[in-house]
């Protein structure tokens, strides 16, 4: 028996509104702008509402898939330069000098700027992994890429972050002396 129509909206709110923060966080990190994030999330929620009957399994990855696609459509339309092809090559850690990571002593603002400066394709896997605590499998589903690509993008994202933090921290003492 199909549930009564009146339940649909209640079920939608009960299952999906709890994940509004996750949706907003992803959109905010991908559009890098509050007003645009809200537009994209609202559009994604209306879309989710329309296709709600097709929801199988967990609501959070399902919703984030829709939000992610809305974000990339928005980027394509408004910031096409941000979707330039990225270097997918995984980094060989051998090329990595074993200095201590500067991230420990880093400034919060600088780290946030470094994440915002990552290519969108790297930023999305990093945000989904570190801020939403999603598994490789869920991230692969949301970003529509193979798990191997999730792993290499995540490795690249982390490596780029580490490198930019090292540059910032080695530049920092100079700024103090000025």
């Amino acid at each position, binding site marked *: 028996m199909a549930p009564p129509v009146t339940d649909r909206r209640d079920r939608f709110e*009960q299952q999906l509104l709890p994940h509004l923060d996750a949706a907003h*966080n992803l959109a905010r990190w991908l559009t890098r702008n509050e007003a645009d994030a809200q537009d994209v999330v609202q559009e994604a929620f209306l879309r989710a509402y329309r296709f709600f009957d097709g929801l199988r399994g967990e*609501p959070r990855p399902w919703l984030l898939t829709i939000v992610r696609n809305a974000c990339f459509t928005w980027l394509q339309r408004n910031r096409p330069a941000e979707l330039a092809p990225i270097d997918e090559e995984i980094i060989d850690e051998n090329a990595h000098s074993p200095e201590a990571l500067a991230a420990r002593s*880093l400034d919060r603002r600088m*780290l946030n700027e470094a994440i915002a400066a990552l290519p969108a394709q790297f930023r999305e896997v990093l945000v989904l992994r570190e*801020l939403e605590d999603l598994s490789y499998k869920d991230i692969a589903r949301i970003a529509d890429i193979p798990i191997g690509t999730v792993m290499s993008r995540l490795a690249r994202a982390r490596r780029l972050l580490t490198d930019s933090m090292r540059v910032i921290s080695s530049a920092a003492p100079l700024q103090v002396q000025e």
Partner: protein
Amino acid sequence: MNLDETRLLQAYVDGELDPASAVALEARLAQNARLRSACERLRETSAAVRANADYHAAPAAFAARLRAALPDEPKAPAPRAWRWPALGWLAPVSALGTAFALGAGVAITFIGPAEGELVAREVIASHVRATLADRLIDVASSDQHTVKPWLSARLPFSPSVADYSGEGFPLVGARLEYVAGKPVAVLVYKRRRHTIDLFAWPGGDPAGAPEERFGFNVERFSAGGLQYWAVSDLNRKELEDFVRLAERRP
């Protein structure tokens, strides 16, 4: 270190390796200082991002606007407890068919959701309402000696209250709720940006409680004549860690 090693190490740090591979990798880590320091670097980067990256929660005004923007569905009359969905369809069929439908109807009435399932829905609904309305906490305190007397003064029972800050689950406060037809205590804990609601009220373990509903994890246990229900959008493993902690040291 080759490329496969980089991936392997990362999967290990992210908790994505199967137990057998993890054990094998740990044995290699114990012997290989270079691998160990690479592992340490990965952990540090991950921890730095988790601790310092901004989490952009949706502003309350936006959440309200979004709810208002959802299309309204026509409100049908409230559904009855159970129906005869097949009856109209069966009308032209024989009396035997009708008797069969009757039997099915009776079976459905008796099978109904288990008590644990109903309670789980109520505690999740309470958790969601509190999160949405930002009304998680009636008494905000990380001090168990403030929270416990506050609850005891308002409830006919006194749940034990503990802070697990040392283990990464700080107590942030408590609230009162009405679940399963009675007033209950809710202790509120944090884990990073996740909220854990720990419900407590007198009674034993109900049967048939689910572990997961609507994307929320649910755990329960009983101690000292009270039943406890933990609800959170935290991952299952960490919620289990929390419950083990609460069970051992309620």
